[in-house]
């Protein structure tokens, strides 16, 4: 069965979300992945937005985390402050996984969603942190969506918006952040994880038809490929739920 890279990415992220977790997501792919997880792999997961809606129906796909579509059928509404407190809270926060995207990522999984170039006069301005830096600061696990491009996988971020493993082992704790960090980076070519000891990114899987060299060509920094396996393509069931139940209008999946 044919599938697009975006479909592959959504399915892989969905597989990464264990059942019974609280999923924090933003707009676009991250929201689609959360919905796919809930409908395919993890029915008892709870999708939750920084806007304060918990466990909404999501009958139509929201185009923003503040879309009125995040409100229908929710179990509870709260303020944004309360929403972030779910994650900063040391009891509930431990059960949250964040799904994020970014303009740049470095080998420690730190993210830039702020700007390219000098901060006070950037060449390219992005939207900024939103809740991304918050969730990265609070929760033990996150999944990152990226396009596999050299200017996006960089040796040094132009601006460190959201903390991954910062400078490597122990640096989150030194900065005052709780342990944990990104668990996976998902691109249109493969996936990466982070070494338990060095906290550095390594290639975890390669999509069918992609060569390691293609991936390395699309990165500024080197990664270890010794642990990389071939990624399992989406199953027929995964694809059909994704297409028919999650985003039938292909608002996020695209044409």
């Amino acid at each position, binding site marked *: 069965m044919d599938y697009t890279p975006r479909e592959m990415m959504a399915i892989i992220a969905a597989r990464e979300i264990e059942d019974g977790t609280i999923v924090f997501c933003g*707009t676009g792919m991250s929201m689609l992945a959360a919905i796919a997880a809930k409908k395919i792999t993890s029915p008892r997961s709870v999708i939750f937005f*920084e*806007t*304060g809606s918990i466990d909404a129906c999501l*009958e*139509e796909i*929201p*185009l*923003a*985390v*503040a*879309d*009125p*579509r*995040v*409100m*229908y059928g929710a179990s509870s*509404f709260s*303020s*944004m*402050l309360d929403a*972030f407190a779910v994650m*900063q809270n*040391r009891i509930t926060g431990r059960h949250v996984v964040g799904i994020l995207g970014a303009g740049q990522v470095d080998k420690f999984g*730190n993210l830039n969603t*702020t*700007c390219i170039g000098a*901060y*006070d*006069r*950037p060449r*390219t*301005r*992005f*939207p*900024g*942190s*939103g*809740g*991304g*830096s*918050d969730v990265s*600061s*609070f929760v033990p696990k996150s999944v990152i969506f990226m396009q596999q491009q050299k200017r996006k996988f960089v040796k040094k971020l132009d*601006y*460190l*918006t*959201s*903390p991954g493993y910062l400078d490597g082992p122990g*640096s*989150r*704790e*030194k*900065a*005052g*952040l*709780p342990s944990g960090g990104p668990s996976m980076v998902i691109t249109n070519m493969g996936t990466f994880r982070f070494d338990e000891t060095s906290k550095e990114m390594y290639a975890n899987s390669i999509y069918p038809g992609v060569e390691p060299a293609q991936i390395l060509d699309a990165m500024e920094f080197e990664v270890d490929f010794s642990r990389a396996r071939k990624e399992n393509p989406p199953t027929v069931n995964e694809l059909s739920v994704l297409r028919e139940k999650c985003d039938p*209008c292909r*608002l*996020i999946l695209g044409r």
Partner: protein
Amino acid sequence: MKLSNDKTTNLKDAVNEFLFEGAHISIGGFTANRNPMAAVHEIIRSGIKRLHLYVHSNGQGVDELIGADCVSAVEIAYGGNGRFAPTCVRFRKAVEQGTLAVEDYTNYQMNLRFLAGAMGIPFLPCHSALGTDIINKWGFSKQRRAGDPRLPDEKLRVMDNPFGQWADSSKVVLVPAVNPDVTFLHVQEADSQGNCRIMGLCFGDVEQAKAAKRLVVTCEKLVDTNVMRRHPEKNQIPGIYVDAVIQVSYGAYPTACYGCYDYDPAYLNEYFRDAKEDSENRNNRQRYVYGLHSHQELLDLIGEERLRLIKADPETGYACNLQRV
């Protein structure tokens, strides 16, 4: 704040009475939802400039204010409008061209800053963004801060937990309070005393309301206070905080107003396209703001047919099966 049984007025008068050149303001809503767009357009028409804007993720309203050159500085967490603008275009251009001073915070931090202002305390602590450039890089220099009594001396401060390792925390970030000169909000219902009822999510509106020195509220419906008082638990903003109440139908249009109407994808997509070119952006503003005298004229221009398309379904609160691409 004001104590009065009749705070109703009109938008022009409210903007003239409470807003001023160089004012520090905030607006309610979130991306494409419940922005006080009628007020935003009236602010643009008023010609009042050099505003200093405090926002978390307020989207469309922010970008229209920036596009109209009303804003000289913004303290912000997210300058996007969901799928309608991954980065708000005029915001992006203004920052890249150096015509807009910007200082970045996280969304939680901006909300905490409003909460601190609402609580009457100088700061609140959090763990957000420790170890990042949000801590290290400031939009306003120490020098500029020292010379401006309306800015705190520091962007934020990192402090060791004064209670040792209590609550499993070693460090906190202290973010300073914000007390805007004026906050503008749009709500579904209010009474003439200013008691406000928001349906659906409140986002940061309640904190933005309570932090403000002056609070101007537009509402879809003006409701009798005795009706509002049958359900005090639904009235999130007590009238004591409110200075002015203005009934404005579709006052959040083109953004959504839960239970009343959806966002208008046609307007938002047209805005996004136009925003990319300076001249088209000017034309867009001429067409939808300067060329009109009131929000009602905008609605007349949009026409009943388009308003019918975005009418909210009473069960879900949005326009089901709305064409959104």
